[in-house]
């Protein structure tokens, strides 16, 4: 009997279309558990998705979020603050995935309750490896809570 693959829903918040393409592709190539990947384009859409507003009314909550920092409408730190201040959402692990290595951003992200901070690598092989490691950690090594209803 083939074991049933665990399904992990990942919400990727990334405004750069190209980066979204590479992140999704790298996560899909990483293998392991079955990933259900959802993408949104800006900070406001992350909150629409999580609060099931508008086009996202029927979407289930994700197991985890990969969050870019520099996004239009609402930036990643604002979104992180909302998530971690809402008892209904705060148990969802949020990994910041950004090209900013500013110490201020790193401190702010962890200070607001971010669960990890990842730097987007410039080299394609490095980025792929990084995302494979992230995927393996969050979907296989770490035990994730059931997403809130």
């Amino acid at each position, binding site marked *: 009997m083939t074991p049933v693959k665990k399904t992990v829903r990942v919400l990727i918040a990334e405004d750069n279309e*190209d980066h979204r393409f590479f992140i999704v592709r790298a996560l899909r190539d990483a293998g392991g558990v079955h990933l259900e990947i959802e993408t949104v384009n800006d900070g406001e859409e992350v909150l629409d998705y999580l609060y099931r507003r508008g086009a996202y009314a029927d979407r289930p909550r994700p197991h985890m979020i990969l969050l870019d920092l520099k996004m239009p409408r609402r930036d990643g730190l604002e979104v992180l603050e909302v998530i971690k201040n809402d008892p209904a959402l705060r148990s969802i692990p949020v990994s910041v995935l950004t090209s900013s290595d500013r110490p201020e951003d790193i401190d702010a992200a962890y200070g607001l309750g971010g669960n990890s901070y990842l730097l987007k690598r*410039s080299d394609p092989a490095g980025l792929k490896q990084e995302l494979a490691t992230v995927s393996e950690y969050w979907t296989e090594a770490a035990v994730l809570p059931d997403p809130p209803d």
Partner: protein
Amino acid sequence: MSESAPLFGQDERDVAERLLLIAGLALDRANRAHMLEISNQDLAAANDELQAFVYSASHDLKNPLIALLGYVDLLKSDNVFEEGSEAAMFIERIEANGWFMSALIQDLLELSRIGRIEEHEEPVDLEQVVGTASETVTVEYPTLQVVVGSALPTLLASRTRVQQLVTNVLANAGRHGGEGVEVVITAEPDEHGLTRIVFQDTGPGVDPAHARRIFRLFERLETGSSDGTGIGLTICRKIAQSLGGDMVLEDSSAGARFVATVAPTHVVSPSTPEAADTSTTTNGHAAGRPALTAQTESTP
């Protein structure tokens, strides 16, 4: 009507006039000092703004670059173009330029950080740093020889920045010094109480006419992509300045001699005892660690 006697005598009027003159001068001086302070504040603010701009611009340039290099990688891995074809060569050139731009952006980001962001300072054993930097640089320049020629100090500084300074100078020697170039690193006090860290190499040297130019941003004396970003020595100088000193290219009868000075407040101990009576040659190995040392010789 009789003429009344003047209220103040001539002497008193002279004193009053003199006082008035002194007060005027003092006021003028205070005004000038105030204006100078405002100018300094404006200058510092403009400098901060410029550095913040360089940081933001460099950071924003990273995003399209990640995409560009990513697509190049996909084209190469999917073997879209026939090997040896002109199109394959174009892809190689796009990739090489992408990597060069990546190095430029990284160096600009580093440059904008030095002095702008407060960094953790700790005692940094310079000899250890030389060992680590040698290991890094000799990967790219395997024939480069690094010799610790005297006891080296322990500095109170950011380890990353000291590492960056030494690595950049060694890489510079590897890039321009030619096959088998040797860099001898020594330390000595100067006449102003600063510590001089001297990097003397055996390469072809630098024309003294370019002694100042080479520390300017984007200045490169040669053409070609192997010539670095033109930011490395600017970074070195800024690091030395952040340690209360400076960095210069001194006249040398043979090879190039770069000297970084460090203020006494950034020197924890003038030398490491173990290094005091030996010099160490490294070639891709950590100096001061006997098991990894390629060669040990007596101090000249």
